[in-house]
């Protein structure tokens, strides 16, 4: 798991946000910025970064997450309109096991076209037996209910 404490000095993305490191910024509001990924999955691939440093999305406060949501929707829409994307993927990785590579939480917005060679978002489909399903359901539901109380 990435470092949880704010580390604006070492975090390259915090330096991008503060302007110390240059980037191609396409979006900005009070709480987040959208920059072009320098190593894009497809041309126009945008990274949305909360201005405050958070390691993982569950650490992002609700008001910031709402701003990120609106930014993601607007950027997705802009990719479709301005870049003629046919679809978009919006993607967050929490933890190295999930493919997270940077210590600053971010949302990828990737413009997609037919046969563009990206296949990782087509998820494998498995079946759970009833017993495992019920066990899993109970564990997650119990935790969720505790959280919402």
């Amino acid at each position: 798991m990435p470092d949880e404490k704010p580390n604006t000095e070492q975090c390259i993305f915090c330096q991008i946000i503060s302007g110390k490191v240059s980037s191609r910024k396409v979006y900005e509001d009070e709480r987040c910025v959208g920059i072009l990924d320098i190593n894009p999955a497809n041309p126009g691939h945008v990274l949305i970064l909360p201005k405050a440093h958070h390691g993982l999305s569950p650490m992002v406060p609700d008001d910031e997450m709402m701003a990120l949501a609106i930014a993601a929707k607007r950027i997705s829409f802009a990719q479709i309109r301005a870049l003629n994307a046919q679809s978009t993927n919006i993607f967050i990785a929490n933890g190295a096991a999930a493919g997270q590579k940077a210590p600053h939480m971010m949302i990828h917005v990737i413009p997609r076209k037919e046969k563009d060679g990206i296949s990782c978002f087509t998820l494998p489909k498995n079946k759970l037996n009833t017993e495992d399903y019920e066990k899993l359901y109970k564990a997650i539901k119990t935790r969720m209910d505790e959280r919402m109380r």
Partner: protein
Amino acid sequence: MSCEYCKPRKLIYEDDKTAAFMSDEPATIGHLVVIPKNHAPILEALDDGTTEKLFLAANKVSLALLESIKCEGTNIIINNGIEAGQDVPHISIQVLSRRNDDGIFFEWAGKKLTEEQMATIELQLKEELAKPVAKKEELIKEPKQDSKQESKPSADKTSDAKPAEAKPEDAKPKEAAEESYLTRQLRRIP
């Protein structure tokens, strides 16, 4: 309607706008699906309030996964359109529990673009994003009725819709353009 996600299910979470449930075809053990309760095919068909709630709900169930089944990470994914891998015509956020050895990789070969290409894309996106936010989200809230909406006056929107800024004469060609855009969008819905 025969939408798979509109069918009643055992829920993990719900609020006034969104619901979360276990995937019937999980990619990993602990794969949740978060949806807007009102049927909407793609992200652009959601109003801002529902979009916010959808992301908040996804983030909450993501945390619940981390805490309940002790997974090592989570992915929060929207496949917005067929080309992006969407296979149910109801927009959703897939929240996956992840483990180091689960055999799933979200990886792509980075495409090399020239500085000039990057600069062009930057400008195109900047210009598009600098445009005032249109109320098209509300216009496509019920995309199945697009043909009917054509004949409706532009004032029937949701409660949070603001009055149209343009005069009726000015608004007409704009709406027509919007309509053809929406029609194009609807074709990419699975």
